[in-house]
Every structure is written in structure tokens, then in C-alpha cells.
């Protein structure tokens, strides 16, 4: 089975287009880079070449949606979310048009292309848009399930993916949970909320914690917006301390969103693992995760800090 985000997207788009002739894929000159050739061969009339012009791509997608199509934009996060952000805000989000954005290359996991291509703030900006669903997939089965689910639902949606290599987490996903979060591990000592490419690293950290006798809950929050606040509050209440982990700035991303929920409904000690107000650089994903503090041992250390801050020990 393929372990690549890119191949998973192509498979999922082929499946969606087979069921739904209104699907129209747009990509800013990265269809080959994203290995969409199999889609292009099978559905040439459901693909639009837009060249290197992201602003017009988003505006055209809005026009297509207004006349009944389901446009699906596919490209690198930096260039399909952040570069045309104003267009997304004003002609997709504001009129609540049925445009889908699938963004690969999100976060430091981009690796060697460096900081200009590492979108470490896309969750923050996209979750500010009223009515936009903001999703992140951690592996191949979840990518396929979320692409299919987002195309099936009506309304604007953003799906965040890694660059290429996807570490398997799920064996298969029959249907996407309506809750928008999956409990991958259950424990009473610390609640770890994570999303996207950090999920397998958090599972590795939780296994290490288990060997120390610390029972962590691990919740994959694949729907950052809307977020299932009840699941966040219930695990925070039960564990009395929280860790968040994401390949994104700790400000504004999953960690920020969790803090917004908890400060209102269940004030708790929260330790956030993520990128800290700095840009990335070139390097392998592994080297970047080590340098910027996104490894299983960083998650484990954060869990220890969170537990030490628990009120009443």
C-alpha cells in the first residue's frame, strides 16, 4: 500500500470524480509535482490548468462554484492558502462557496525546500474564516477518508497534509467520525491533543510514557474547525493537564485553538509542542523536527511538565 500523501490525494480525487461529475480540480502548475497524472489521464475534462497564478485560480474556483461545480484546489499549502488568502477570504469564505482546498507541504515537514515553502501558520489563518472547515490528515487512510468526506459535504473546506512520506497510523477508515476527533489511546494522567504529521510521533511518545508508568490519552483532532469542544473539555477534566503537539506555530494553531476552548470551559495547565515564533530552514524532516522541538522526546518532556503543573499533584 502506498505511504505517500500525494498518491493518496490522487487516489481520493479519482474516487471522488468517478462519483461526482461536478468535481473540477485546479492546480497551480504542480499537478506533476503532486503526481496527479493518473487523474489527468482519466478525467481531462475535470481538470483546469491555471498556470502559476494562484489569485486567479481561487477567483476562478469561486466562479465555477457559483455555477454548480465543486472546485477542488490542490497545491502546496504556502501557495494555495497563504498566497491567495485575501481571495479565499473575500470570494470563497464570505459568500460561503463550495470550494475545497487540499494543501500538501504543510509545516516543517516540507524539509529541504526551506522556509519559503514551509507553511507554519496556515491553520491559524484558515481557522479565522467564518464557515470554513479546517482539517488535517495524519496518514494515507485518513487522507483518503477526509478528501472523500470534504467533497461530499457542501461548503468551503481546507485540508492540511504533509509533503510526501506518511507514517501509518490507521489501518483503514470506514467513515469519518462526526466528532472530528479520534481517541487513539486512553489514559488518565495527561491528555495529548495532536493533529496531522505529528500524530505518529505523539503515539511513539505515549508508548515511552507508558513504559514510565504514565498513562496518556492521545486524541487526533483532525477537524480543527469545527472543533469538538466537548471531547477536549472531557479529557482535560479527566486528566487535569494537557499537551498539544503540531507541526505549526504554537500560536494560532491547534494549541491556540485548544487553549481558547479550555480557558473558557476548563482552565487547565497546557504545554504546547510546536514551532515557536521563528521561521524554519532547509534540512531533512527528521533534522528539522529535532532542531525545532517536534520529536517524541519533546512531547514526552512536555507531558512531564504538564503533569508537574497539575493542581493537587
Amino acid at each position, binding site marked *: 500500500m502506498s505511504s505517500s500523501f500525494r498518491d493518496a490525494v490522487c487516489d481520493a480525487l479519482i474516487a471522488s470524480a468517478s462519483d461526482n461529475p461536478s468535481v*473540477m480540480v485546479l492546480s497551480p502548475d504542480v499537478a506533476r509535482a503532486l503526481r496527479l497524472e493518473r487523474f489527468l489521464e482519466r478525467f481531462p*475534462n475535470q481538470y*483546469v*490548468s*491555471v*498556470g502559476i*497564478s494562484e*489569485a*486567479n*485560480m*481561487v*477567483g*476562478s*474556483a*469561486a*466562479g*465555477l*462554484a*457559483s*455555477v*454548480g*461545480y465543486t*472546485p477542488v484546489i490542490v497545491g502546496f499549502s504556502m501557495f494555495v492558502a497563504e498566497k491567495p488568502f*485575501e*481571495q479565499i477570504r*473575500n*470570494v470563497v469564505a*464570505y*459568500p*460561503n462557496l463550495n470550494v475545497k482546498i487540499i494543501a500538501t507541504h504543510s509545516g516543517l515537514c516540507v524539509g529541504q525546500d526551506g522556509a519559503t515553502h514551509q507553511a507554519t501558520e496556515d491553520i491559524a489563518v484558515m481557522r479565522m474564516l467564518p464557515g470554513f472547515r479546517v482539517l488535517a490528515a495524519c496518514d494515507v487512510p485518513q487522507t483518503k477518508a477526509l478528501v472523500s468526506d470534504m467533497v461530499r459535504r457542501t461548503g468551503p473546506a481546507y485540508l492540511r497534509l504533509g509533503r510526501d512520506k506518511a507514517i501509518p497510523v490507521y489501518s483503514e477508515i470506514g467513515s469519518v467520525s462526526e466528532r472530528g476527533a479520534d481517541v487513539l489511546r486512553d489514559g488518565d494522567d495527561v491528555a495529548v491533543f495532536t493533529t496531522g504529521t505529528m500524530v505518529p510521533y505523539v503515539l511513539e511518545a505515549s508508548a515511552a510514557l507508558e513504559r514510565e508508568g504514565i498513562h496518556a490519552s492521545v486524541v487526533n483532532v483532525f477537524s480543527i474547525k469545527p472543533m469538538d469542544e466537548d471531547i477536549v473539555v472531557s479529557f482535560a477534566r479527566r486528566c487535569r493537564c494537557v499537551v498539544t503537539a503540531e507541526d505549526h506555530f504554537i500560536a494560532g494553531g491547534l494549541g491556540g485553538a485548544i487553549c481558547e476552548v479550555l480557558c473558557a470551559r476548563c482552565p487547565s495547565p497546557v504545554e504546547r509542542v510546536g514551532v515557536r515564533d521563528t521561521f524554519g530552514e532547509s534540512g531533512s524532516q527528521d533534522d528539522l523536527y529535532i532542531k525545532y522541538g517536534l520529536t517524541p522526546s519533546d512531547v514526552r518532556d512536555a507531558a512531564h511538565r504538564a503533569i508537574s503543573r497539575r493542581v493537587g499533584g
Partner: protein
Amino acid sequence: MRDAPVSLRDLERKARYLRRWVVELIYAAKSGHLGGSLSIMDMLAALYYGVIRVDPARPDWPGRDRFVLSKGHTAPALYAVLADKGFFSKEDLFDGYRRINSIFQGHPDFKKTPGLDMSAGSLGVGLSAACGMALGAARSGAGFLVYSIVGDGETNEGEIWEAAMFAAHHRLDNLTVMIDMNGMQNDGPTRDVMDMGDMSEKWRSFGWSVRDVDGHSLADIQAALRDASASRGRPGVLICRTIKGKGVSFMENNIHFHGAVPTRQEYEAAMRELS
């Protein structure tokens, strides 16, 4: 459906009283963009009375032609036309324009106002949306036509030229654009703020079928619109020479009235001129 042909005299009369509505509307709301709304009025009248196929009784009719006012700040002109055609009442428009809880936003919101086909206001993106509609019609064989009005200042936007490339590449001959060449933008004359050079030549070099038109000659605009829709293989653009503030002598070519609200004396003088 397309309206029965309107005589040139009736069309000119319509354009004149719709200009009155625009001035009244902006004076009543104490905000809005007069100069550009007056400069596009003849283009809108030419389009909406005898060319575009729309049905006020069925604003969401899927087979209707589409129109995108890419220079969305001139919404008062479009609102006046749509009210006159019966998409909503003139009274509702005058009560609501730019006021709280109204369907008549300062810039077009197609989810709120019947008769609009796209939201606009951020310059450049309206033309892209029009391209998407035209591509959709071409791919599905739906057969409707797409029209858009773009400001000459708006062509400073890079997105306009992205859209120009896109429409030519995809041979969107079901798309016709009118450029409102009033020669002025927010900060002054376009040649001083950002000189675009030979506008016709620019569009021609991007692969469009170009027609130079007197933007205040209703007959010429209608003839050019019909001619553009009939030509195959290329999108069409009308380079419409217009006068900002057209119809009110002291507003014509006066940059002050790009965004200024007339005083009571100016309002009364304008009403006299447009009577």
C-alpha cells in the same frame, strides 16, 4: 430572457433617470462612490436593456447570462438598474443601501441581493470569478454568456492579467469584458498614479478580441457587445472611453467625486442637471 428591444431614445432616458437614482442613493446614504457609478451607467444600461438574458421573476434561473461587477464599489449603478428591472423595489433599495440589516451592502454581496451573480469589492477578483463562470459554461455546454465590468484603475491589479491569460488560454469566447476607461483612480489621473500605456494593445497582446468604444454611446456599446459575443475562439473586451462623473457637469472629470458625498447644494444642482 432577453428584453424586447428598447429604442435608443428610451435607453438614453433610462440612463438619465438611473443616474438620478445613483445621486439620490449616495446622497441619502451619505456614502458611496459617485464618479465611477456615473461613468459605468451607460455600459450597464446598454447591457441590461436588450443584451443580457436575465429574468427578474427568476433571479436564480440557471440558464441566465451572468454579470460580475468587478469594480464593486460602483454598486449603486448596478442596484439602480436591477431595481428598475424589478429584481427588488426602488423603495427597499433606498431604505436599505449601506444601512444595518440590509440586503444592499456597500459592495455587491450576491448571497444577499437578488440579481447579483457574484460578490465583489476587492479589486481584481471579480474578473477571475467571471472566468470561472465562463469556463464552467464552456465545459458543461450550459450556453449562457458571461459579462463583466472592470475599472481602468483596477487593471493595475496583477490578478486582472492572470485572468486575461487564463481566459485567452481556455478560449473563453463566451466572456465579454467592458473596461471603464474614465482615466481616474483614487489618488488621481491614472496616467500619474500608474500609467497603463496602450490598454487596447495590452489586451490584444494577451489574445483577446478588442473593440474600442465610446462608453457613453449606447448604440455603439450594444453593437460592440453583440459583435463580441458572436466572435469565436477568443474572449472579447470593449475598451470603453468614459468620463468619470458623467452627466453632472461639475462632477465630470473631478477626482473629488470618486468617493465624496455631495453637499446639499451640490445634490440639488445635480438633480436639476439630470432632470
